[in-house]
């Protein structure tokens, strides 16, 4: 006998993600899911952002890693509220982990919540957390073929940051080729070229972030 089921296999995660989304909306929080390969510059971007917006925007961070609290301790040094989630092997943060983490945070005191995901260009693209915006980083040393190899990650990002542009002269990275490839996958997303090390391009990133925050707060 055939039984119709029609059940999304990732339903459980999506339902909790929706609850997270409503919680963010009710507190007018801009929640940003920050994704990239390991070592592309997620934490560096957060350090630059926290320092430049100190006193203007209340930033909190959820750090996600398989193991260690290195990133949380780095963020804590900047006096930003931060919690560390260790997935113990799971390849991505999921909505349940975020829901748990939020219970330990003062949501009334947050304007922007950055969720620094596990370094991975595959799984985080398909696991919703209830975030308001999805931001990904590609760094110059990783190479310019990544949009072809990991298309879903590039299509679903609201912003793509190309980091470590200070290393362009040392590599064969084809910036215009990558920009074209990203645009074809993601015609509406914003693209920023930055160096967290030199500060190049950071102002444009911050302007985007502030305009997204304004939108989140006016809903």
């Amino acid at each position, binding site marked *: 006998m055939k*039984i119709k*089921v*029609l059940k999304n296999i990732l339903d459980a995660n999506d339902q909790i993600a929706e609850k997270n989304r409503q919680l963010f909306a009710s507190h007018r929080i801009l929640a940003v899911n920050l994704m990239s390969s390991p070592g592309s510059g997620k934490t560096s971007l957060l350090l630059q952002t926290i320092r430049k917006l100190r006193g203007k925007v209340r930033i909190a961070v959820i750090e996600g890693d398989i193991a260690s609290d290195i990133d949380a301790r780095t963020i804590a040094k900047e006096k930003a509220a931060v919690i560390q989630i260790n997935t113990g092997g799971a390849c991505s943060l999921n909505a349940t982990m975020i829901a748990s983490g939020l219970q330990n945070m003062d949501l009334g005191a947050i304007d922007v919540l950055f969720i620094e995901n596990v370094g991975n260009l595959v799984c985080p693209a*398909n696991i919703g957390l209830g975030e308001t915006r999805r931001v990904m980083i590609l760094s110059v040393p990783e190479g310019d073929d990544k949009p072809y190899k990991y298309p879903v990650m590039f299509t679903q990002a609201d912003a793509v940051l190309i980091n470590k542009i200070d290393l362009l002269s040392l590599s064969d990275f084809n910036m215009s080729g990558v920009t074209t490839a990203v645009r074809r996958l993601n015609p509406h997303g914003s693209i920023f070229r930055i160096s967290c090390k030199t500060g190049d391009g950071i102002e444009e990133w911050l302007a985007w972030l502030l305009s997204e925050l304004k939108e989140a707060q006016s809903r």
Partner: protein
Amino acid sequence: MHELAIAERIVEIAVDNAKLNNATRISRINVVIGELSNVASDSIQFYFDSLSQDTMARSATLSFLHKPARFECGSCHAVFGFDERSVVCPRCGSAATSVVSGKEFYIESIEVDQT
């Protein structure tokens, strides 16, 4: 993606639905996987085979229907696929396109014995 957790969930959903219908054995589970879902069906099968051992889903055939990514142009209504790694309309160049299929990842149906 994390195929072990996915295989676990497939067994769970299948068994829940079988029980709701007073079934004693699941013979087949029909799963739809969209091209954009980043799910590897071979890996699911691998985990499913061992996870289903002590359940009603033991020895069930896991059947996958792969749906290709399809986009539709909001300007000229052309429908196109994802081979070129572009969501821009190949016919008129418009960026006003939307996903028609390819994001699916669900259990369509199960086949059971009731004794």
